């Protein structure tokens, strides 16, 4: 694809794309894991990395490599759910508020601002404590989504406000295009880089939140995620015992994931930026 080729010219995209592909492969590998991640003691404990166990084993007797595949998969699932659902809400709220204006705008922005002002972290912690037992991947994703849309809704709204004043809006109106279709067809291409980069940022935030909740002991510890892996390692004193393979695996994976997501977001949003897109359209 020409788009892919253009993007790969940017080293940031190339590196992040590769890293994410590798992580995705890891996540897919989890389907082939010989061990069930919820069982303990399927291997000898505290083994250093070797050929049979690439990243060693944990104090719970679990192969760290295969745990990690599940951890990556689950963290990605949480962040994708959180990111996409919150995008959908943010886009809908932002676009409707921006285009309709007046009362609709004020009501929606009031709601959005309330979410911004609330101490999100405390509320998430509270809710997590309440539903800890029934917390699974999807629920956690939805919980994070519910709190992650407010900021971006306002950003999208302000972009819509400025686009509304441009003449092509009038042309579309005179062409008979109705509101919803107009907003989707005319404004979405402009909002795309914004939406995309906030998606990635939101995903990174979700992963971070997940890890934080896990370390606070508020997650369901049976489900392997980057956060829970880290939490188990900490609670089993992996640092003191020098079990660097157990501790570093989730940490290094998380760092790679964050950097990759960041670079991806930056390079793609630069590519999608309407100003550079317009240049490219003519150049061919």
């Amino acid at each position, binding site marked *: 694809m020409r788009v892919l080729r253009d993007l790969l010219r940017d080293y940031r995209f190339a590196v992040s794309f590769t890293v994410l592909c590798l992580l995705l492969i890891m996540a897919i590998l989890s389907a082939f894991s010989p061990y069930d991640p919820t069982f303990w003691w399927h291997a000898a404990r505290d083994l250093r990395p070797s050929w049979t166990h690439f990243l060693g084993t944990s104090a719970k007797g679990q192969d760290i490599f295969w745990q990690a595949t599940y951890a990556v998969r689950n963290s990605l699932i949480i962040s994708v759910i959180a990111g996409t659902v919150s995008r959908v809400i943010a886009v809908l709220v932002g676009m409707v508020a921006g285009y309709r204006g007046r009362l609709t705008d004020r009501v929606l922005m009031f709601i959005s601002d309330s979410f911004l002002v609330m101490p999100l972290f405390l509320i998430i912690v509270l809710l997590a404590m309440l539903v800890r037992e029934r917390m699974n991947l999807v629920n956690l994703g939805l919980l994070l989504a519910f709190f992650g849309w407010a900021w971006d809704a306002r950003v999208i709204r302000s972009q819509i406000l400025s686009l509304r004043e441009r003449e092509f809006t009038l042309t579309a109106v005179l062409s008979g295009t109705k509101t919803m279709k107009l907003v989707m067809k005319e404004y979405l291409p402009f909002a795309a880089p914004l939406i995309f980069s906030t998606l990635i940022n939101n995903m990174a935030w979700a992963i971070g939140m997940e890890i934080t909740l896990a370390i606070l002991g508020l997650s369901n510890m049976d489900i392997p995620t980057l956060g829970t892996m880290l939490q188990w390692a900490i609670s089993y004193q992996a640092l003191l015992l020098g079990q660097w393979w157990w501790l570093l695996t989730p940490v290094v994976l998380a760092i790679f994931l964050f950097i990759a997501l960041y670079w991806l977001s930056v390079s793609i949003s630069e590519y999608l930026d309407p100003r550079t897109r317009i*240049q490219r359209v003519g150049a061919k």
Partner: protein
Amino acid sequence: MNGVMPSTVLRAEQLKAFYILDAFGTEKIVKAVNGVSVQIRENEVYGIAGESGCGKTTLLKALYSAIEPPLRLMGGRVFYVRDGEEIDVYSLSKEEKRRLRWEYISYVPQGSMSVLNPVKKLKDSYSDFLESHVAGKTRRDTLAIARRHLHELGLPPKVLDAYPHQLSGGMRQRVTIALAALLGPRIMIADEPTTALDVVVQRGVIQLFKSIQESLKNTIVLVTHDMGVHANVADRIGIMYAGVMIEESTVERVFEEPLHPYTQYLINSLPKFGDKSVRESAPGSPPSLANLPSGCPFHPRCPHAMDVCLQEMPEVVDVGENHRVACWLVEGGGDGRAA
């Protein structure tokens, strides 16, 4: 205009200035000024006409030696004539150029807000300006000079106490022009000074240029696409098309006997009061400066295009009576009527 041998004050020789752009791996070369030679005289108003994208703004920048990347000087030279001596502008150091600016040659860009400091009152801008060019004057002196200058030009001196945003667009423009004329430069270059101004205000701006030229007896190079403005204020006009100067003559001859087919189309398409007969434009549209046709850039639209027009760029021919044309239809010398 001088009756006797008019002497040159600014000269350009085969000037070439291109924009080299690089977007996502594809290189684009915009040939904005593609071999322009021109001689501008003392004590005249020289108009440069042409539509958007013909390179006239770039030509001004090149004449003022304000060339910065992605614009690059690809060839040719520019000379200023000062006290009988020719100065090759592009061989000067930055400091020497700085000293020439505003005292010998000044530039009024499109959009006056880029010259005036928006957070300073005009009197401060004027005083700062004077202080950086003329030594040994107190604040009161500079203010007095500024007031007198504005008064002489027919502008109300009370504008000095205002901020730029408090003035209307037209007044700002005139104040900027007055600032450019403050040190009595021998050459003033103005880029589209009347665009976006209302008709009556436009007239005020043009009158200002005229009165400056009459009192300083200097040279004004005025770039605008509005032929009406040229008709009213220019002594000689140069017509630019696709980076080349295709015709140059006195204002009367350009309007009454244009020789280049493009100029002919241009003059004939201007609406005139009292005449409702049909007017025609040139067919097609101007070429992109990044993708010029071969030979003469006008040939795709020219009804008289010949084979040679597609192959070679016509040379500039002097047909006498202060009239120069770059067109294969025009034989050198004599009457210069199309064959």
